[in-house]
């Protein structure tokens, strides 16, 4: 029982991180039907910007809460701006071209960003000041670290915030309208270019937050860290029904859990296999994902 509980905690933590990254994929897909392969790099860039800012703030004598809070906020803004720039350079000029061109542009951008990170930040891992978040609760053999609690809380807050933004505000309404029909929404006065740009920004901001939390949770960041979680999050987005926000959250949690339980009860070797078997099964039996991808109201 203890073993199960511990694995459950592990699974929810990992799932939360995947969910945050998956949202970026799903939102961008929802609005311009593009699978943004460069999305994982925003996660990595966030991890790096986070460690730079937080270390700087800590060096200035700021308290841990301030360091993390301010570092998180600034990093999210930075990655949002980065994503807007990427969108402007790599995707906007291709808006009327075939989907394949945009996809290739996304792949190219991913390679460019990853190598840019390597050249500017070096090949060595950068360590996070993990002592800021050290410690945790213990019940018998079950350990719940403070960082895991932070991940639950921050992920939860961001997910709720995103839901409010998309379903309760005018901007959210404009996003949903653009996703449904770009021409029609432009006719009623929505600046679709701006809305698309904003969607990229929000997705990248969430990925950046995930990057910082991963940095704290695991202890370090690396220039190539965006690739694998990027693929897993993409699987999560497809699993939930790509384009569907709630679906991405659920998909992320499922992929995280499956991975942890496959590794815990079978072998670590099989965790990726199982994560992707689920994906294949869903695509085979229910190609629109578990939550469906054409639920227009919940699509961004």
């Amino acid at each position, binding site marked *: 029982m203890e073993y199960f509980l*511990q694995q459950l905690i592990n699974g929810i933590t990992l799932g939360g991180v995947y969910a945050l990254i998956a949202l970026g994929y799903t939102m961008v897909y929802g609005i311009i039907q593009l699978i943004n392969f460069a999305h994982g790099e925003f996660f990595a860039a966030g991890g790096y910007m986070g460690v730079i800012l937080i270390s700087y703030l800590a060096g200035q004598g700021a308290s841990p809460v301030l360091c993390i809070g301010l570092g998180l906020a600034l990093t999210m803004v930075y990655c949002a701006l980065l994503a807007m720039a990427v969108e402007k350079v790599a995707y906007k000029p291709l808006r009327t071209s075939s989907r394949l061109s945009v996809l290739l542009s996304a792949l190219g951008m991913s390679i460019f960003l990853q190598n840019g990170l390597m050249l500017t930040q070096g*090949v060595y891992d950068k360590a996070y000041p993990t002592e800021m978040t050290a410690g*945790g609760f213990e019940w018998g053999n079950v350990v719940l670290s403070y960082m895991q609690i932070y991940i639950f809380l921050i992920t939860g807050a961001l997910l709720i915030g995103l839901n409010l933004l998309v379903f309760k505000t005018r901007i959210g309404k404009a996003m949903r309208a653009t996703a449904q029909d770009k021409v029609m929404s432009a006719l009623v006065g929505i600046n679709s270019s701006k809305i698309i740009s904003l969607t990229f920004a929000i997705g990248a901001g969430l990925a950046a937050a995930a990057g910082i939390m*991963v940095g704290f949770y695991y202890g370090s960041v690396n220039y*190539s860290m965006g*690739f694998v*979680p990027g693929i897993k999050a993409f699987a999560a987005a497809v699993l939930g029904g790509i384009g569907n926000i709630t679906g991405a959250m659920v998909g992320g949690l499922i992929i995280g859990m499956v991975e942890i339980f496959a590794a815990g009860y079978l072998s670590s*070797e099989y965790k990726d296999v199982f994560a992707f078997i689920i994906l294949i099964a869903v695509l085979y039996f229910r190609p629109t994902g578990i939550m469906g991808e054409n639920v227009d109201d919940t699509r961004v």
Partner: protein
Amino acid sequence: MKRILFMACILMLAASTAFAGETLKMGSMSPLTGPYAADGNDIANGARTAIEVIKADGGIPGFDDITLSAQDTACDPRQAVAAANKLINEEVTGVVGAYCSSATLPASETLDEEDIVMLTPASTNEKVTERGLKNIFRTCGRDDDQSKAAIRFMTDYLKAKSIYLVDDKTAYSQGLADNVEKGSPAAGIKVLGHDHVNQGDKDFSAVLTKVKAANPDVFYVSLQNSATGALLIIQAKRMGIDAVYLAQDAVYHPQLIEIAKKDANGMYLTFGYVDTDAPSYQKFIKAYEPKYGKPGAYSAYAYDSAMAYLLAVKKAGSTDLAKVREALLSMEFDGASKKFKYMENGDSGSNYIIRQIKDGEYINFWNAQTGEKY
């Protein structure tokens, strides 16, 4: 007027190249990108340092310049062969590398066809020197010796009764873990489990929860990469696994302590003995550290490999494989990593000891030959 000046420039350029002596071209092969880039760059930097030191000491007679062409293998067998071909085209005569045994094996055969010497600072797989090739030399130790040192430490010093092994499925890391697993029962150590993780994994919580439930005396960590090792140690400590942590030489790197910080304290690693007080080591560290920072696990081995090659060329007065080989086999080297002499098969002998991380530093801990503490 302009034209005359231009012609003069051209003539001078032509003259300068015509009168210059030969350049000794060396190459290095190691993963400069990808997950093993940290160790790979250490290797290139170690070779560079050897060249700088030789140049500062007056160079090699007959050669005006010594250059290094650093190639990226990404730890991939195919890319390693491509890198070897590139070095062949650049007409290098001696190569330091590669890092991963799986890259060294095919690349050494490609280089062998062109009679180019290859000195590996890091590939510990037994097969490297067991193929009868005349061009391959190994400055580091061998996996079979390393696993024996680990087992001896567990029985003689730790008096361990049980072990749990984790590796990340590379030819090197899994091969070593398999050797330890095979040797354990005979030494009276019960194998509670042997699990595998994927390269590039960041989350080990699931496998660590298993290890915790098994509650072994020794937790043996055989990974190809120090940064991954650090992540695993942090998570294991957080989970409260209070076994003895034992790792190997690929996990060994300053980065491990940098990332895992105090969580790394107390863990043991099998690693080649390095006498940091020896003058040869001091000479190396004085040239290396100001430029490239703290040396990694293989910096000194790469430095020694390049140094051995350069000294052998100096002695042979030629870059011809047969002559260089003869020189390499006849010389005794007082290297930064160890004193060594190459044997007929290219090996230089293993000197694995147990090192420990104490207060954020690697220290020599236990001599696996004599069974004594340092």
